[in-house]
């Protein structure tokens, strides 16, 4: 398709002939309200909100079903078209409870945004005259449905019909009795189910996991990458520091990346933020007793110096590449052999033919590129230094130093706390070889050192 020029609100734009007008509007942030269109789901044309004026056409047209034509002249603003949209929006609100103050979606609700934009604060309609539907339906998979808040955009139903092809959700009934539902007695149940919460443009679908935990406008979003498997789905880490408390992650949300995950993530990845912050290793532990950082460093050096026989270093294949590189250099420096065993991370049951990969180690590819050995060492070691590797306890060793993010069931000679990925920064290489940088999202009140911070201290003490 050839490139062509169109005029929108008196400005010129270049676009592909025959592509969708709404994509162009979205790309250039030309604000036109819309509910039903979604890049991943395509046009359905049911909400009728994306109306624009097109020169030469008698009636307003929906941008999501308008193809770019050479010389097209489009108006998204102006008295006429805005009043058209305002009137349709008003109808959208007629059977809506407009209970934003108690709605979880408030702050990221398109309906709320639009009616604020269009000055429809009070929709003078008797509650008694509204069509009433069910309000708290547990759909399953952590998703709650409020039928009264639903604008019937069919995004969620198209997701289960066209994307996951699991067909749990559907719009049933006709006219203004139409509503989203599962089959009686059936649940929303698929590994990607919670994406419908992000897809829902209003507060009709909410996450039970997130419901009422935070007002969204208090949250800070940091781009990152899920560490649930080698797919490396792009996410936002939504976090906040409440007064007197530590910075907390409230949710992971998918972040669009056409080269990796499109618009979606799996539920397991989405919910992995919880385990990330629970049961953290925060103390330094020497032979079962808490010690200070200085004591810990001293113990570290002593253990290293006293090591008899081979030294083995284990690196978790979830660590950032920069961290792996640093460990590799350190291992060479102390004459240790380095392993990043992958065995533990094979999980055929987890895999599917969409996003989820049977390789559960987020940075397995980087390990491979750095040519780090991926087998489990069988020889007995004089000293084992593990950087958060889950198989540390399986290695036979005289002495063990374990840097770990979470409290484990095994006791070691020296256990040292380690930052999790959201508290560190670095690069992941996903299974297709795509490099993705993750900035640090979380700063704890009392920071836990990252791999690099530990190594810097250790090597500093060394000299």
């Amino acid at each position, binding site marked *: 398709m050839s490139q062509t020029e169109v005029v929108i609100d008196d400005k010129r734009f270049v676009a592909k002939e025959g592509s969708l007008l709404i994509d162009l509007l979205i790309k250039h942030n030309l604000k036109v309200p819309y509910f039903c269109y979604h890049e991943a789901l395509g046009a359905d044309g049911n909400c009728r909100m994306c109306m624009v004026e097109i020169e030469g056409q008698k009636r307003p047209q929906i941008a999501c079903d308008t193809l770019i034509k050479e010389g097209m002249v489009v108006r998204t603003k102006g008295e006429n078209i805005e009043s058209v949209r305002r009137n349709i929006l008003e109808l959208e609100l007629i059977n809506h409870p407009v209970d934003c103050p108690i709605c979880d979606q408030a702050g990221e609700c398109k309906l709320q945004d639009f009616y604020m934009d269009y000055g429809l604060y009070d929709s003078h309609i008797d509650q008694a005259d509204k069509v009433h539907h069910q309000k708290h339906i547990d759909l399953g998979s952590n998703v709650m449905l409020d039928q009264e808040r639903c604008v019937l955009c069919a995004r969620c139903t198209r997701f*289960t*019909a066209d994307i996951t092809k699991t*067909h*749990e*959700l*559907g*719009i*049933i*009934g*006709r006219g203004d009795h139409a509503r989203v539902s*599962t*089959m*009686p*007695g*059936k649940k929303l149940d698929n590994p990607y189910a919670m994406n419908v919460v992000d897809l829902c443009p209003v507060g009709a679908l909410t996450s039970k996991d997130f419901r009422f935990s935070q007002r969204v406008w208090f949250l800070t979003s940091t781009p990152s990458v899920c560490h649930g498997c080698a797919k490396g789905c792009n996410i936002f880490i939504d976090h906040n520091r409440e007064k007197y408390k530590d910075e907390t992650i409230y949710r992971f949300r998918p972040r669009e990346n056409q080269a990796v995950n499109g618009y979606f993530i799996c539920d397991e990845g989405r919910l992995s933020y919880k385990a990330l912050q629970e049961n953290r290793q925060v103390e330094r532990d020497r032979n079962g007793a808490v010690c200070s950082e200085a004591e810990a460093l001293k113990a570290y050096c002593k253990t290293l110096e006293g090591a008899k026989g081979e030294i083995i270093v284990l690196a978790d294949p979830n660590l950032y590449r920069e961290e792996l590189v640093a460990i590799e250099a350190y291992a060479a420096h102390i004459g240790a052999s380095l392993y990043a065993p992958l065995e533990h991370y094979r999980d055929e049951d987890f895999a599917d033919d969409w996003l989820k990969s049977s390789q559960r180690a987020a940075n397995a590819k980087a390990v491979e590129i750095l040519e780090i050995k991926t087998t489990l060492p069988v020889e007995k070691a004089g000293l084992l230094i593990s950087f958060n590797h889950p198989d540390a306890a399986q290695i036979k060793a005289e002495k063990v130093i374990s840097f770990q993010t979470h409290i484990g069931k095994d006791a070691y000679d020296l256990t040292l706390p380690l930052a999790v990925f959201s508290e560190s920064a670095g690069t992941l290489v996903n299974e297709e070889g795509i490099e993705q940088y993750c900035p640090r999202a979380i700063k704890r009140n009392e920071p836990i050192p990252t791999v690099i911070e530990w190594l810097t201290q250790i090597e500093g003490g060394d000299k």
Partner: protein
Amino acid sequence: MSFVFSKENLERIEALKSRYPSPKALLLPCLWMAQYQEGYISLDAIEVIGEVIDMPPMELYRVATFYTMFNLEPVGKYHIQLCKTLSCALRGKAQILAQLSNRLGIKPGESSQDGKYTLSQVECLGSCGTAPVMQINDRYYENLTPEKIDTILESLEEES
């Protein structure tokens, strides 16, 4: 699953498959067969039809709830459907409704205690020239008068 298509219906389904470009086209015909067979369309029937025409049950359920003639709950043995649209209203539908309600002791949307009658009001039956009109199960009753209602109801009583 408690629903099974009768042998006769299974044969009809097979015959119909050759007449359409896709088995999905058999959705409405299958729902009709299930409704005639059982008196209403049960969730079991929906599952079974889904297998027959290779469609997920939810897609069927969406469709079944769209059409007013499909009963997803059992209805009375005689489903009386009185037209309420304009031509019938102009020609005295209100008296007919009153007569039906009085004789049966039920309001539109209700079923008689013995489960014999269900009374519904429906939209235009496409019989406006012979208004007022009602349908009992598959049969039309046209040019209704209160007296005719009496005779019709009496004949139904005799029938059963």
